[in-house]
């Protein structure tokens, strides 16, 4: 019943929207109708334009995310486990954190041009901070008693990492991961708005010049869908990795 209601309210909004467009209340140059959006999405898909744009944007997000995650994990591990590392690296990371991300766009264009690099680096920068902060906090919060157990049981270093540290930091890292992915997409959208010769941002920008609100909205929906997909992947990871918390399943 409640489940049905959850689906019903968005459907009602779409129906009203379609009605307003069909009756001419909503001007297509302000906002295209849902039916028009579906047609446009289909045509853009058939022509190959949309899949190509999605692929280009997804690649930027993936590369930026990988780069940012690598830096965050390396720095976070050093800072979280070593006092010296903390003293040396943490101030730098805190400085990075205070930089206005989008304020860097002009500088990045000067440094890296207008091709792929500035977008990838901007996404990487957006990913680094939340992932780093959550990893460091999680590493500092690892239960000392369990670390002592690892020592008492004479676990090898790799075993202690696998059985104690990794599972202990996983909940915090997954929170950081979700925040980082959210920021990565937002950052990519902004970076692609500024300038792009391909990708979803390019598609949207071009459409703006011709008042093609249907293409703009289709582009936005694609961003949303990509965000939903990555969020779903993290949630699946969470479910798999944090099963022990629910304890619902019995032996």
């Amino acid at each position, binding site marked *: 019943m409640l489940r049905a209601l959850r689906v019903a309210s968005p459907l009602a909004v779409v129906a009203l929207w379609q009605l307003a467009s069909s009756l001419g209340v909503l001007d297509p140059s302000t906002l295209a109708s849902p039916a028009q959006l579906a047609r446009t999405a289909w045509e853009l898909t058939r022509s190959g334009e949309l899949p190509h744009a999605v692929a280009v944007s997804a690649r930027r997000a993936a590369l930026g995310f990988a780069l940012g995650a690598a830096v965050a994990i390396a720095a976070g591990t050093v800072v979280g486990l070593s006092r010296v590392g903390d003293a040396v690296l943490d101030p730098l990371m805190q400085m990075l954190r205070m930089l206005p991300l989008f304020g860097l766009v002009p500088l990045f264009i000067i440094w890296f041009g207008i091709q792929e690099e500035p977008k990838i680096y901007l996404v990487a920068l957006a990913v680094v901070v939340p992932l780093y902060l959550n990893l460091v906090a999680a590493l500092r919060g690892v239960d000392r*008693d*369990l670390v*002592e*157990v*690892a*020592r*008492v*049981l*004479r*676990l*090898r270093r790799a*075993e202690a990492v696998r*059985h*104690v540290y990794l*599972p*202990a930091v*996983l909940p915090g890292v997954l929170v950081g991961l979700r925040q980082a992915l959210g920021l990565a997409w937002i950052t990519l959208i902004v970076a692609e708005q500024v300038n792009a010769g391909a990708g979803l941002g390019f598609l949207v920008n071009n459409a703006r010049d011709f008042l093609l609100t249907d293409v703009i909205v289709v582009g936005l929906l694609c961003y949303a869908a990509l965000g939903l997909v990555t969020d779903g992947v993290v949630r699946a990871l969470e479910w798999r990795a944090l*099963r*022990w*918390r629910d*304890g619902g399943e*019995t*032996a």
Partner: protein
Amino acid sequence: MTGTDLTTPVVAAAHGVRRAFGDHVVLDGVDLEIRRGEFVTLLGRSGSGKSTLLRIVGGLDQGAEGDVRTGTAPAVVFQDPRLLPWRRVLDNVALGLRGPDARARSTEVLDEVGLAGRERAWPRQLSGGQRQRVALARALVREPDLLLLDEPFSALDALTRISAQQLVRRLVDVHRPAVLMVTHDVEEALLLVDRVVLVDDGRIALDEEVGVRRPRRRDDPDLVRWRTRLLGLLGVADA
């Protein structure tokens, strides 16, 4: 059973041990030897240094001065079970065990502590007493020559505690490690152990065999006399 046989090998020993945290001296001039199969308790008021001594004998405290020899395979059961909440019961017991039969041995020991059939459970699905039994299995599966028990029963409810005590005594009789147990509970100590070591103000105030035959009953006159004496030494009047 009782009466230390001097031909039995010494498993762990501490001689002239001193431990200070900053200016605060916790242990000073402590000597202690534990032989194979011997069940020894460390009694003392809180702050007496008994837990510190246990940690030193178990090789968990590297900051002590003096001559310390711990077991070749020490195992510890703490006050709280300290299981990895993200590993199933069997994986907790088998943690860090090598060899192809690690899981089979772990299953056997789980059976010994009365947890057969719970191998695939998560720790949080178990009761407090069951979790402590998993911790005991995790210690025993390593076939320790020295078993350290740091107030292992104090977090359990009264009924669970009695069955856990009986289980530990039975397992110790079967596996014959040297056992060193810290407890606050004089009666618990007297029911279980072969020898009482009383730590007071950083020194050993008493080190004696409990020559009461087994099975021991709480109302055994010898045990009652022991109890009154130990409580007196701990500065508590026996009611």
